[in-house]
Protein backbone atom coordinates (compact mmCIF):
# COMPACT_ATOMS: atom_id res chain seq x y z
CA UNK A 1 0.00 0.00 0.00
CA UNK A 2 1.31 3.38 -0.98
CA UNK A 3 1.99 5.94 1.68
CA UNK A 4 2.08 9.70 1.63
CA UNK A 5 5.59 11.12 1.70
CA UNK A 6 6.23 13.87 4.20
CA UNK A 7 5.43 17.37 3.09
CA UNK A 8 8.48 19.32 2.03
CA UNK A 9 9.02 22.89 3.20
CA UNK A 10 7.30 25.63 1.25
CA UNK A 11 8.64 26.35 -2.21
CA UNK A 12 9.68 29.77 -3.40
CA UNK A 13 6.87 32.11 -4.49
CA UNK A 14 8.24 32.13 -8.07
CA UNK A 15 7.72 28.38 -8.02
CA UNK A 16 3.97 28.68 -7.55
CA UNK A 17 3.80 31.37 -10.25
CA UNK A 18 5.41 29.03 -12.77
CA UNK A 19 3.20 26.11 -11.76
CA UNK A 20 0.12 28.23 -12.44
CA UNK A 21 1.56 29.62 -15.67
CA UNK A 22 2.27 26.09 -16.88
CA UNK A 23 -1.37 25.18 -16.35
CA UNK A 24 -2.51 28.13 -18.46
CA UNK A 25 -0.16 27.23 -21.30
CA UNK A 26 -1.07 23.52 -21.24
CA UNK A 27 -4.72 24.47 -21.34
CA UNK A 28 -4.11 26.62 -24.40
CA UNK A 29 -1.99 24.07 -26.25
CA UNK A 30 -4.42 21.23 -25.57
CA UNK A 31 -7.54 23.08 -26.63
CA UNK A 32 -7.37 22.95 -30.44
CA UNK A 33 -10.28 25.37 -30.76
CA UNK A 34 -8.22 28.05 -29.02
CA UNK A 35 -5.04 27.46 -31.00
CA UNK A 36 -6.52 26.91 -34.46
CA UNK A 37 -9.55 29.20 -34.35
CA UNK A 38 -7.73 32.02 -32.61
CA UNK A 39 -4.91 31.93 -35.13
CA UNK A 40 -7.23 31.53 -38.10
CA UNK A 41 -9.42 34.41 -37.01
CA UNK A 42 -6.48 36.76 -36.70
CA UNK A 43 -5.13 35.72 -40.09
CA UNK A 44 -8.51 36.17 -41.73
CA UNK A 45 -8.95 39.69 -40.40
CA UNK A 46 -5.50 40.66 -41.55
CA UNK A 47 -6.28 39.37 -45.05
CA UNK A 48 -9.61 41.24 -45.08
CA UNK A 49 -7.98 44.53 -44.13
CA UNK A 50 -5.14 43.97 -46.55
CA UNK A 51 -7.12 42.90 -49.61
CA UNK A 52 -10.76 43.99 -49.07
CA UNK A 53 -10.45 47.39 -47.40
CA UNK A 54 -6.83 48.00 -48.36
CA UNK A 55 -7.64 49.20 -51.89
CA UNK A 56 -9.82 52.03 -50.58
CA UNK A 57 -7.38 53.15 -47.88
CA UNK A 58 -5.02 56.05 -48.21
CA UNK A 59 -2.21 56.04 -45.69
CA UNK A 60 -0.38 59.00 -47.18
CA UNK A 61 3.25 58.61 -48.17
CA UNK A 62 3.52 54.99 -46.97
CA UNK A 63 1.94 51.93 -48.59
CA UNK A 64 -1.16 50.66 -46.78
CA UNK A 65 0.33 47.24 -46.00
CA UNK A 66 3.28 48.89 -44.25
CA UNK A 67 0.85 51.12 -42.39
CA UNK A 68 -1.57 48.34 -41.49
CA UNK A 69 0.60 45.45 -40.33
CA UNK A 70 2.26 47.24 -37.36
CA UNK A 71 -1.16 48.50 -36.25
CA UNK A 72 -2.84 45.16 -36.71
CA UNK A 73 -0.12 43.27 -34.86
CA UNK A 74 -0.27 45.72 -31.94
CA UNK A 75 -4.04 45.42 -31.51
CA UNK A 76 -3.65 41.66 -31.09
CA UNK A 77 -2.95 42.44 -27.42
CA UNK A 78 -6.56 43.50 -27.01
CA UNK A 79 -8.06 40.51 -28.76
CA UNK A 80 -5.81 38.14 -26.80
CA UNK A 81 -6.88 40.02 -23.68
CA UNK A 82 -10.53 39.14 -24.21
CA UNK A 83 -9.57 35.51 -23.87
CA UNK A 84 -7.58 36.31 -20.74
CA UNK A 85 -10.59 37.97 -19.09
CA UNK A 86 -12.76 34.97 -19.91
CA UNK A 87 -10.07 32.60 -18.62
CA UNK A 88 -9.82 34.32 -15.24
CA UNK A 89 -13.60 34.45 -14.92
CA UNK A 90 -13.79 30.75 -15.72
CA UNK A 91 -11.22 29.97 -13.03
CA UNK A 92 -13.39 31.86 -10.55
CA UNK A 93 -16.59 30.18 -11.69
CA UNK A 94 -15.19 26.66 -11.60
CA UNK A 95 -13.62 26.91 -8.18
CA UNK A 96 -9.95 26.93 -9.19
CA UNK A 97 -9.47 30.38 -7.68
CA UNK A 98 -10.99 29.14 -4.41
CA UNK A 99 -8.61 26.21 -4.35
CA UNK A 100 -5.60 28.42 -4.98
CA UNK A 101 -6.70 30.92 -2.35
CA UNK A 102 -7.03 28.12 0.20
CA UNK A 103 -3.39 27.07 -0.38
CA UNK A 104 -0.43 28.40 1.57
CA UNK A 105 1.01 30.38 -1.36
CA UNK A 106 1.33 34.13 -1.92
CA UNK A 107 -1.85 35.79 -3.17
CA UNK A 108 -0.09 37.29 -6.18
CA UNK A 109 1.09 33.92 -7.51
CA UNK A 110 -2.17 33.15 -9.26
CA UNK A 111 -2.37 36.52 -10.99
CA UNK A 112 1.31 36.60 -11.89
CA UNK A 113 1.05 33.05 -13.24
CA UNK A 114 -1.91 33.95 -15.42
CA UNK A 115 -0.20 37.08 -16.70
CA UNK A 116 2.89 35.04 -17.55
CA UNK A 117 0.92 32.35 -19.38
CA UNK A 118 -1.13 34.89 -21.31
CA UNK A 119 2.02 36.74 -22.31
CA UNK A 120 3.49 33.49 -23.64
CA UNK A 121 0.37 32.88 -25.70
CA UNK A 122 0.54 36.46 -26.94
CA UNK A 123 4.06 35.82 -28.25
CA UNK A 124 2.71 32.84 -30.19
CA UNK A 125 -0.04 34.96 -31.81
CA UNK A 126 2.45 37.72 -32.57
CA UNK A 127 4.88 35.42 -34.32
CA UNK A 128 2.14 33.91 -36.50
CA UNK A 129 0.64 37.28 -37.40
CA UNK A 130 3.99 38.86 -38.20
CA UNK A 131 4.78 35.94 -40.48
CA UNK A 132 1.48 36.42 -42.32
CA UNK A 133 2.21 40.15 -42.44
CA UNK A 134 5.46 39.52 -44.27
CA UNK A 135 3.70 37.05 -46.57
CA UNK A 136 1.19 39.68 -47.68
CA UNK A 137 3.84 42.25 -48.53
CA UNK A 138 4.86 44.03 -45.33
CA UNK A 139 8.53 45.07 -45.19
CA UNK A 140 10.75 46.62 -42.54
CA UNK A 141 12.19 49.97 -43.64
CA UNK A 142 14.56 50.27 -40.71
CA UNK A 143 16.97 47.83 -39.15
CA UNK A 144 16.03 44.31 -38.04
CA UNK A 145 16.94 45.16 -34.46
CA UNK A 146 14.30 47.91 -34.45
CA UNK A 147 11.77 45.33 -35.61
CA UNK A 148 12.69 43.08 -32.68
CA UNK A 149 12.45 46.00 -30.27
CA UNK A 150 8.99 46.69 -31.69
CA UNK A 151 7.95 43.08 -30.99
CA UNK A 152 9.32 43.27 -27.45
CA UNK A 153 7.37 46.51 -26.93
CA UNK A 154 4.15 44.80 -27.98
CA UNK A 155 4.77 42.13 -25.35
CA UNK A 156 5.22 44.89 -22.76
CA UNK A 157 1.98 46.58 -23.87
CA UNK A 158 0.25 43.21 -23.76
CA UNK A 159 1.47 42.63 -20.22
CA UNK A 160 0.11 46.05 -19.20
CA UNK A 161 -3.31 45.44 -20.74
CA UNK A 162 -3.34 41.94 -19.26
CA UNK A 163 -4.01 43.58 -15.86
CA UNK A 164 -7.00 45.40 -17.26
CA UNK A 165 -8.42 42.13 -18.51
CA UNK A 166 -7.62 40.21 -15.33
CA UNK A 167 -9.42 42.88 -13.32
CA UNK A 168 -12.38 42.69 -15.73
CA UNK A 169 -12.48 38.91 -15.47
CA UNK A 170 -12.41 39.02 -11.67
CA UNK A 171 -15.17 41.63 -11.53
CA UNK A 172 -17.31 39.79 -14.08
CA UNK A 173 -17.10 36.49 -12.22
CA UNK A 174 -18.29 34.38 -15.15
CA UNK A 175 -16.91 33.83 -18.62
CA UNK A 176 -19.87 35.21 -20.53
CA UNK A 177 -20.03 38.43 -18.56
CA UNK A 178 -16.28 38.78 -18.97
CA UNK A 179 -16.60 38.49 -22.75
CA UNK A 180 -19.24 41.18 -22.60
CA UNK A 181 -17.10 43.55 -20.55
CA UNK A 182 -14.11 42.93 -22.77
CA UNK A 183 -16.22 44.42 -25.57
CA UNK A 184 -14.63 47.72 -24.67
CA UNK A 185 -11.67 46.67 -26.81
CA UNK A 186 -13.62 47.73 -29.91
CA UNK A 187 -13.62 51.49 -29.33
CA UNK A 188 -9.97 51.22 -28.31
CA UNK A 189 -8.90 49.38 -31.46
CA UNK A 190 -11.03 51.07 -34.12
CA UNK A 191 -10.84 54.61 -32.71
CA UNK A 192 -7.05 54.52 -32.92
CA UNK A 193 -4.39 54.85 -35.54
CA UNK A 194 -4.23 51.06 -35.93
CA UNK A 195 -6.13 50.61 -39.20
CA UNK A 196 -6.63 54.10 -40.59
CA UNK A 197 -4.82 57.42 -40.15
CA UNK A 198 -6.34 59.41 -37.28
CA UNK A 199 -6.49 62.51 -39.53
CA UNK A 200 -9.20 60.83 -41.62
CA UNK A 201 -11.60 60.82 -38.64
CA UNK A 202 -14.03 63.63 -37.74
CA UNK A 203 -12.64 66.17 -35.28
CA UNK A 204 -14.41 64.96 -32.13
CA UNK A 205 -13.23 61.39 -32.71
CA UNK A 206 -9.70 62.54 -33.53
CA UNK A 207 -9.49 64.16 -30.11
CA UNK A 208 -10.06 60.76 -28.48
CA UNK A 209 -8.13 58.69 -31.01
CA UNK A 210 -5.01 60.82 -30.87
CA UNK A 211 -4.62 60.64 -27.11
CA UNK A 212 -5.67 57.15 -26.19
CA UNK A 213 -2.95 54.60 -25.30
CA UNK A 214 -3.44 52.26 -28.25
CA UNK A 215 -2.59 55.05 -30.72
CA UNK A 216 0.70 55.75 -28.95
CA UNK A 217 1.49 52.04 -28.81
CA UNK A 218 0.64 51.48 -32.48
CA UNK A 219 2.65 54.51 -33.56
CA UNK A 220 5.64 53.43 -31.48
CA UNK A 221 5.64 50.06 -33.25
CA UNK A 222 4.96 51.65 -36.63
CA UNK A 223 7.75 54.21 -36.23
CA UNK A 224 10.24 51.45 -35.41
CA UNK A 225 9.35 49.60 -38.62
CA UNK A 226 9.58 52.71 -40.80
CA UNK A 227 13.21 53.48 -40.02
CA UNK A 228 14.35 56.90 -41.22
CA UNK A 229 10.93 57.66 -42.75
CA UNK A 230 9.21 57.62 -39.36
CA UNK A 231 9.57 61.32 -38.69
CA UNK A 232 8.25 62.28 -42.11
CA UNK A 233 5.29 59.87 -42.03
CA UNK A 234 4.20 60.18 -38.39
CA UNK A 235 5.34 63.68 -37.51
CA UNK A 236 7.65 62.58 -34.69
CA UNK A 237 10.69 60.29 -34.41
CA UNK A 238 10.29 56.81 -32.87
CA UNK A 239 11.52 57.74 -29.40
CA UNK A 240 8.65 60.21 -29.04
CA UNK A 241 6.06 57.46 -29.40
CA UNK A 242 8.07 54.81 -27.56
CA UNK A 243 8.50 56.93 -24.44
CA UNK A 244 4.83 57.94 -24.34
CA UNK A 245 3.61 54.39 -24.92
CA UNK A 246 5.79 53.15 -22.09
CA UNK A 247 4.42 55.82 -19.76
CA UNK A 248 0.91 54.69 -20.69
CA UNK A 249 1.87 51.05 -20.00
CA UNK A 250 3.25 51.92 -16.59
CA UNK A 251 0.14 53.95 -15.78
CA UNK A 252 -2.15 51.08 -16.79
CA UNK A 253 -0.23 48.61 -14.62
CA UNK A 254 -0.15 51.09 -11.71
CA UNK A 255 -3.94 51.42 -11.78
CA UNK A 256 -5.15 47.97 -12.76
CA UNK A 257 -2.68 45.61 -11.06
CA UNK A 258 -3.59 46.84 -7.54
CA UNK A 259 -7.27 46.73 -8.52
CA UNK A 260 -6.95 43.14 -9.68
CA UNK A 261 -4.99 42.13 -6.57
CA UNK A 262 -7.50 43.81 -4.25
CA UNK A 263 -10.41 42.13 -6.02
CA UNK A 264 -8.63 38.79 -5.87
CA UNK A 265 -7.91 39.07 -2.15
CA UNK A 266 -11.55 39.78 -1.44
CA UNK A 267 -12.63 36.66 -3.34
Amino acid at each position, binding site marked *: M*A*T*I*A*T*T*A*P*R*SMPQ*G*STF*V*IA*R*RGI*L*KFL*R*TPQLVVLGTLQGALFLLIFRYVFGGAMNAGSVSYVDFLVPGFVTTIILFAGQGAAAGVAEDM*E*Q*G*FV*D*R*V*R*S*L*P*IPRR*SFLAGRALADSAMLVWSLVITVAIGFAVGFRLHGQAIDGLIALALIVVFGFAFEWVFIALGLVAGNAQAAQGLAFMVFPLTFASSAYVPVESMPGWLQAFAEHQPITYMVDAVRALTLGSRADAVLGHPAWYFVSRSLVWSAAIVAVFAPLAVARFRR*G
Partner: protein
Amino acid sequence: MDRTIEATGVTKRFGKTAALDGLDLVAERGQVTAVLGPNGAGKTTFVRGVATLLRMDGGTLLVGGHDVRREPDAVRAMIGLAGQFAAVEPAMTGRENLEMVARLFGQARRPAKANSAAVLERMGLTEAADRLVRTYSGGMRRKLDLGASLVGSPRLLLLDEPTTGLDPRSRIELWDAIRALVERGTDVLLTTQYLDEADHLANRIVIIDHGRAVAAGTPAELKQRAGKSVIEVHVRDRGDLPRVAAILARLDHGTPQVEESTRRVSVAVEAGAGSLREAFQALDAAGAEVDDLSLRPPTLDEVFLALTGVPLDAAGDDGASPATAGTPANAPPAA
Protein backbone atom coordinates in the same frame (compact mmCIF):
# COMPACT_ATOMS: atom_id res chain seq x y z
CA MET B 1 -5.42 21.20 21.07
CA ASP B 2 -8.24 18.72 20.73
CA ARG B 3 -10.56 21.00 18.82
CA THR B 4 -10.18 21.20 15.07
CA ILE B 5 -12.72 23.93 14.61
CA GLU B 6 -14.15 26.22 17.22
CA ALA B 7 -16.65 28.81 16.06
CA THR B 8 -18.19 31.17 18.59
CA GLY B 9 -20.91 33.61 17.63
CA VAL B 10 -19.69 33.85 14.05
CA THR B 11 -21.57 36.36 11.89
CA LYS B 12 -21.37 37.21 8.22
CA ARG B 13 -23.71 39.49 6.32
CA PHE B 14 -24.14 39.92 2.59
CA GLY B 15 -25.91 43.23 2.22
CA LYS B 16 -29.09 42.94 4.22
CA THR B 17 -29.13 39.18 4.66
CA ALA B 18 -27.29 37.51 7.51
CA ALA B 19 -25.70 34.39 6.05
CA LEU B 20 -24.26 33.49 9.46
CA ASP B 21 -26.11 34.86 12.45
CA GLY B 22 -24.15 33.94 15.56
CA LEU B 23 -23.10 30.42 14.62
CA ASP B 24 -21.58 28.28 17.38
CA LEU B 25 -19.94 25.09 16.25
CA VAL B 26 -17.26 22.78 17.57
CA ALA B 27 -15.53 20.03 15.57
CA GLU B 28 -13.48 17.71 17.75
CA ARG B 29 -10.16 16.24 16.73
CA GLY B 30 -10.36 12.83 15.08
CA GLN B 31 -13.95 13.23 13.98
CA VAL B 32 -16.04 13.76 10.92
CA THR B 33 -18.40 16.64 11.52
CA ALA B 34 -21.32 17.14 9.18
CA VAL B 35 -23.00 20.51 8.81
CA LEU B 36 -26.50 19.66 7.72
CA GLY B 37 -28.99 22.21 6.52
CA PRO B 38 -31.24 23.33 3.70
CA ASN B 39 -30.16 25.57 0.81
CA GLY B 40 -29.26 29.02 2.03
CA ALA B 41 -28.70 27.92 5.62
CA GLY B 42 -25.16 29.31 5.60
CA LYS B 43 -23.24 26.05 5.11
CA THR B 44 -21.09 27.24 2.23
CA THR B 45 -20.45 30.60 3.88
CA PHE B 46 -19.16 28.79 6.95
CA VAL B 47 -16.86 26.49 4.94
CA ARG B 48 -15.50 29.49 3.04
CA GLY B 49 -14.83 31.17 6.35
CA VAL B 50 -12.93 28.16 7.67
CA ALA B 51 -11.00 27.94 4.39
CA THR B 52 -9.88 31.60 4.78
CA LEU B 53 -11.70 32.54 1.58
CA LEU B 54 -14.19 34.84 3.28
CA ARG B 55 -13.59 37.19 6.16
CA MET B 56 -16.22 36.83 8.86
CA ASP B 57 -17.82 39.99 10.25
CA GLY B 58 -17.92 39.02 13.90
CA GLY B 59 -17.34 36.28 16.45
CA THR B 60 -14.25 34.11 16.64
CA LEU B 61 -13.32 31.27 14.33
CA LEU B 62 -10.39 29.08 15.31
CA VAL B 63 -9.03 26.31 13.10
CA GLY B 64 -6.51 24.06 14.82
CA GLY B 65 -6.21 26.77 17.45
CA HIS B 66 -5.30 29.43 14.86
CA ASP B 67 -7.47 32.47 14.40
CA VAL B 68 -8.62 32.45 10.78
CA ARG B 69 -8.42 36.22 10.53
CA ARG B 70 -5.03 36.73 12.17
CA GLU B 71 -3.14 33.65 11.04
CA PRO B 72 -4.65 32.67 7.70
CA ASP B 73 -1.40 31.11 6.45
CA ALA B 74 -1.21 28.75 9.42
CA VAL B 75 -4.78 27.69 8.65
CA ARG B 76 -4.07 27.28 4.93
CA ALA B 77 -1.15 25.02 5.70
CA MET B 78 -3.41 22.54 7.52
CA ILE B 79 -6.54 22.43 5.36
CA GLY B 80 -7.57 20.86 2.07
CA LEU B 81 -10.66 22.18 0.30
CA ALA B 82 -13.00 20.49 -2.14
CA GLY B 83 -15.73 22.90 -3.11
CA GLN B 84 -19.08 22.43 -4.78
CA PHE B 85 -17.51 22.31 -8.22
CA ALA B 86 -14.85 19.91 -9.33
CA ALA B 87 -12.05 22.47 -9.56
CA VAL B 88 -9.86 20.32 -11.75
CA GLU B 89 -8.45 21.36 -15.11
CA PRO B 90 -10.08 19.43 -17.98
CA ALA B 91 -7.12 20.01 -20.32
CA MET B 92 -4.68 18.27 -17.95
CA THR B 93 -4.45 14.64 -16.96
CA GLY B 94 -5.51 13.46 -13.54
CA ARG B 95 -1.87 13.02 -12.58
CA GLU B 96 -0.89 16.49 -13.80
CA ASN B 97 -3.74 18.02 -11.84
CA LEU B 98 -2.65 16.41 -8.60
CA GLU B 99 1.03 17.13 -9.14
CA MET B 100 0.18 20.76 -9.78
CA VAL B 101 -1.72 21.08 -6.49
CA ALA B 102 1.02 19.22 -4.63
CA ARG B 103 3.60 21.63 -6.06
CA LEU B 104 1.42 24.57 -5.05
CA PHE B 105 1.30 23.07 -1.58
CA GLY B 106 5.03 23.59 -1.52
CA GLN B 107 6.20 20.06 -2.24
CA ALA B 108 9.35 19.48 -4.25
CA ARG B 109 8.98 17.73 -7.59
CA ARG B 110 9.73 14.19 -6.40
CA PRO B 111 7.52 14.08 -3.31
CA ALA B 112 4.81 15.78 -5.37
CA LYS B 113 4.98 12.92 -7.89
CA ALA B 114 5.02 10.25 -5.18
CA ASN B 115 2.12 11.78 -3.26
CA SER B 116 0.05 12.23 -6.40
CA ALA B 117 0.58 8.60 -7.39
CA ALA B 118 -0.42 7.47 -3.90
CA VAL B 119 -3.57 9.59 -3.91
CA LEU B 120 -4.55 8.39 -7.38
CA GLU B 121 -4.19 4.84 -6.13
CA ARG B 122 -6.37 5.52 -3.12
CA MET B 123 -9.04 7.18 -5.23
CA GLY B 124 -9.05 4.24 -7.63
CA LEU B 125 -7.95 6.51 -10.48
CA THR B 126 -4.59 4.94 -11.30
CA GLU B 127 -5.81 3.52 -14.60
CA ALA B 128 -7.27 6.84 -15.71
CA ALA B 129 -4.37 8.86 -14.29
CA ASP B 130 -2.77 9.73 -17.63
CA ARG B 131 -5.97 10.56 -19.46
CA LEU B 132 -7.09 14.15 -19.87
CA VAL B 133 -9.70 15.04 -17.26
CA ARG B 134 -12.07 16.18 -20.00
CA THR B 135 -12.65 12.49 -20.72
CA TYR B 136 -13.60 11.77 -17.08
CA SER B 137 -17.15 11.21 -15.84
CA GLY B 138 -18.67 13.57 -13.29
CA GLY B 139 -18.01 11.08 -10.51
CA MET B 140 -14.37 10.65 -11.51
CA ARG B 141 -13.88 14.42 -11.57
CA ARG B 142 -15.27 14.72 -8.06
CA LYS B 143 -12.98 11.95 -6.89
CA LEU B 144 -10.02 13.66 -8.49
CA ASP B 145 -11.06 16.92 -6.88
CA LEU B 146 -11.24 15.16 -3.54
CA GLY B 147 -7.77 13.77 -4.30
CA ALA B 148 -6.51 17.28 -5.04
CA SER B 149 -7.65 18.40 -1.63
CA LEU B 150 -5.76 15.48 -0.09
CA VAL B 151 -2.48 15.61 -1.89
CA GLY B 152 -1.06 18.14 0.54
CA SER B 153 -1.76 15.72 3.43
CA PRO B 154 -4.02 18.20 5.21
CA ARG B 155 -5.01 17.68 8.83
CA LEU B 156 -8.47 18.98 8.13
CA LEU B 157 -10.42 18.28 4.99
CA LEU B 158 -13.24 20.65 4.05
CA LEU B 159 -15.87 19.15 1.77
CA ASP B 160 -18.64 21.43 0.59
CA GLU B 161 -21.56 19.30 -0.59
CA PRO B 162 -19.21 16.68 -2.02
CA THR B 163 -21.87 14.56 -3.70
CA THR B 164 -24.35 17.15 -4.96
CA GLY B 165 -25.26 16.39 -8.55
CA LEU B 166 -23.74 12.91 -8.60
CA ASP B 167 -25.59 9.78 -9.64
CA PRO B 168 -26.28 7.28 -6.83
CA ARG B 169 -23.43 4.96 -7.76
CA SER B 170 -20.79 7.70 -7.89
CA ARG B 171 -22.18 9.01 -4.65
CA ILE B 172 -21.59 5.72 -2.88
CA GLU B 173 -18.10 5.44 -4.38
CA LEU B 174 -17.26 8.90 -3.09
CA TRP B 175 -18.63 8.00 0.33
CA ASP B 176 -16.32 4.99 0.39
CA ALA B 177 -13.37 7.18 -0.52
CA ILE B 178 -14.22 9.66 2.24
CA ARG B 179 -14.66 6.87 4.78
CA ALA B 180 -11.27 5.46 3.88
CA LEU B 181 -9.70 8.83 4.60
CA VAL B 182 -11.32 9.05 7.93
CA GLU B 183 -9.88 5.69 8.88
CA ARG B 184 -6.46 7.16 8.24
CA GLY B 185 -7.13 9.87 10.78
CA THR B 186 -7.93 12.93 8.70
CA ASP B 187 -10.44 15.25 10.33
CA VAL B 188 -13.30 16.14 8.03
CA LEU B 189 -15.83 18.94 7.99
CA LEU B 190 -18.46 18.31 5.38
CA THR B 191 -21.65 20.10 4.45
CA THR B 192 -24.64 18.34 3.03
CA GLN B 193 -28.34 18.65 2.45
CA TYR B 194 -28.82 14.93 2.82
CA LEU B 195 -29.43 13.32 6.17
CA ASP B 196 -28.37 9.90 4.91
CA GLU B 197 -25.04 11.33 3.79
CA ALA B 198 -24.40 12.88 7.19
CA ASP B 199 -25.53 9.65 8.80
CA HIS B 200 -23.17 7.52 6.68
CA LEU B 201 -20.11 9.65 7.12
CA ALA B 202 -20.21 11.72 10.26
CA ASN B 203 -19.56 11.09 13.95
CA ARG B 204 -21.30 14.30 14.74
CA ILE B 205 -23.99 16.29 12.97
CA VAL B 206 -24.69 19.98 13.43
CA ILE B 207 -27.97 21.09 11.91
CA ILE B 208 -27.96 24.71 10.89
CA ASP B 209 -30.62 26.99 9.55
CA HIS B 210 -30.66 30.73 8.88
CA GLY B 211 -27.05 30.97 9.96
CA ARG B 212 -27.41 29.39 13.39
CA ALA B 213 -26.92 25.92 14.82
CA VAL B 214 -30.35 24.57 15.72
CA ALA B 215 -29.34 21.08 16.90
CA ALA B 216 -26.21 18.99 17.30
CA GLY B 217 -25.40 15.45 18.28
CA THR B 218 -24.33 12.06 17.02
CA PRO B 219 -26.42 10.62 14.20
CA ALA B 220 -27.87 8.13 16.69
CA GLU B 221 -28.84 10.86 19.13
CA LEU B 222 -30.49 12.96 16.49
CA LYS B 223 -32.35 10.03 15.06
CA GLN B 224 -33.47 8.96 18.50
CA ARG B 225 -35.05 12.32 18.88
CA ALA B 226 -36.59 12.22 15.43
CA GLY B 227 -37.50 8.53 15.11
CA LYS B 228 -35.22 5.91 13.59
CA SER B 229 -37.27 5.29 10.51
CA VAL B 230 -40.46 6.40 8.90
CA ILE B 231 -43.43 4.38 7.69
CA GLU B 232 -45.07 5.98 4.73
CA VAL B 233 -48.49 5.03 3.37
CA HIS B 234 -49.99 6.16 0.08
CA VAL B 235 -53.77 5.73 0.18
CA ARG B 236 -55.88 5.33 -2.93
CA ASP B 237 -58.80 7.38 -1.67
CA ARG B 238 -58.31 10.81 -0.17
CA GLY B 239 -61.22 10.13 2.21
CA ASP B 240 -59.20 7.37 3.87
CA LEU B 241 -56.48 9.78 5.04
CA PRO B 242 -57.85 10.52 8.53
CA ARG B 243 -58.61 6.86 9.15
CA VAL B 244 -55.12 5.74 8.11
CA ALA B 245 -53.57 8.50 10.19
CA ALA B 246 -55.52 7.25 13.22
CA ILE B 247 -54.27 3.68 12.64
CA LEU B 248 -50.66 4.82 12.34
CA ALA B 249 -51.00 6.99 15.44
CA ARG B 250 -51.61 3.85 17.48
CA LEU B 251 -48.40 2.16 16.29
CA ASP B 252 -45.79 4.18 18.07
CA HIS B 253 -45.39 7.43 19.92
CA GLY B 254 -44.86 9.51 16.77
CA THR B 255 -47.54 11.88 15.48
CA PRO B 256 -48.48 10.99 11.91
CA GLN B 257 -48.05 13.66 9.24
CA VAL B 258 -50.70 13.88 6.54
CA GLU B 259 -50.00 15.31 3.13
CA GLU B 260 -53.29 15.92 1.37
CA SER B 261 -51.96 16.72 -2.06
CA THR B 262 -50.03 13.46 -2.46
CA ARG B 263 -52.46 11.30 -0.38
CA ARG B 264 -49.63 10.33 1.90
CA VAL B 265 -49.45 9.63 5.62
CA SER B 266 -46.13 9.16 7.38
CA VAL B 267 -45.12 8.40 10.94
CA ALA B 268 -41.78 8.06 12.70
CA VAL B 269 -41.24 4.64 14.32
CA GLU B 270 -38.60 3.08 16.55
CA ALA B 271 -39.01 -0.58 15.77
CA GLY B 272 -38.46 -0.53 12.00
CA ALA B 273 -39.53 -3.73 10.30
CA GLY B 274 -41.63 -4.86 13.24
CA SER B 275 -43.68 -1.69 13.06
CA LEU B 276 -44.06 -2.12 9.33
CA ARG B 277 -45.63 -5.57 9.86
CA GLU B 278 -47.93 -4.14 12.50
CA ALA B 279 -48.93 -1.29 10.24
CA PHE B 280 -49.66 -3.67 7.41
CA GLN B 281 -51.86 -5.85 9.57
CA ALA B 282 -53.72 -2.91 11.10
CA LEU B 283 -54.37 -1.34 7.70
CA ASP B 284 -55.49 -4.66 6.29
CA ALA B 285 -57.86 -5.28 9.20
CA ALA B 286 -59.37 -1.83 8.80
CA GLY B 287 -59.88 -2.46 5.09
CA ALA B 288 -58.11 0.74 4.01
CA GLU B 289 -57.11 0.74 0.33
CA VAL B 290 -53.38 1.30 0.17
CA ASP B 291 -51.35 1.92 -2.99
CA ASP B 292 -47.97 1.73 -1.39
CA LEU B 293 -46.53 1.06 2.05
CA SER B 294 -42.87 1.63 2.78
CA LEU B 295 -40.25 1.94 5.48
CA ARG B 296 -37.56 4.57 4.93
CA PRO B 297 -35.07 6.71 6.86
CA PRO B 298 -36.38 10.12 7.93
CA THR B 299 -35.71 13.06 5.63
CA LEU B 300 -33.98 16.24 6.69
CA ASP B 301 -37.39 17.94 6.83
CA GLU B 302 -38.71 15.35 9.24
CA VAL B 303 -35.67 15.47 11.51
CA PHE B 304 -35.79 19.22 11.41
CA LEU B 305 -39.45 19.27 12.33
CA ALA B 306 -38.97 16.75 15.12
CA LEU B 307 -35.98 18.60 16.58
CA THR B 308 -37.18 22.16 16.27
CA GLY B 309 -40.95 21.82 16.17
CA VAL B 310 -40.93 24.06 13.10
CA PRO B 311 -41.13 22.79 9.55
CA LEU B 312 -38.02 23.62 7.50
CA ASP B 313 -39.71 26.02 5.13
CA ALA B 314 -41.28 28.08 7.91
CA ALA B 315 -38.25 28.23 10.16
CA GLY B 316 -36.67 31.59 10.85
CA ASP B 317 -38.16 35.01 10.53
CA ASP B 318 -38.96 35.32 6.86
CA GLY B 319 -42.04 33.12 7.23
CA ALA B 320 -41.77 31.41 3.85
CA SER B 321 -44.77 29.32 2.84
CA PRO B 322 -44.92 25.97 4.62
CA ALA B 323 -46.78 24.52 1.64
CA THR B 324 -44.71 21.35 1.33
CA ALA B 325 -44.47 20.61 5.02
CA GLY B 326 -46.80 18.12 6.60
CA THR B 327 -49.90 19.19 8.47
CA PRO B 328 -50.74 17.55 11.80
CA ALA B 329 -52.95 14.50 11.50
CA ASN B 330 -55.74 15.97 13.59
CA ALA B 331 -56.22 18.98 11.32
CA PRO B 332 -59.60 18.89 9.60
CA PRO B 333 -59.28 17.36 6.15
CA ALA B 334 -59.66 19.79 3.31
CA ALA B 335 -62.75 19.26 1.19
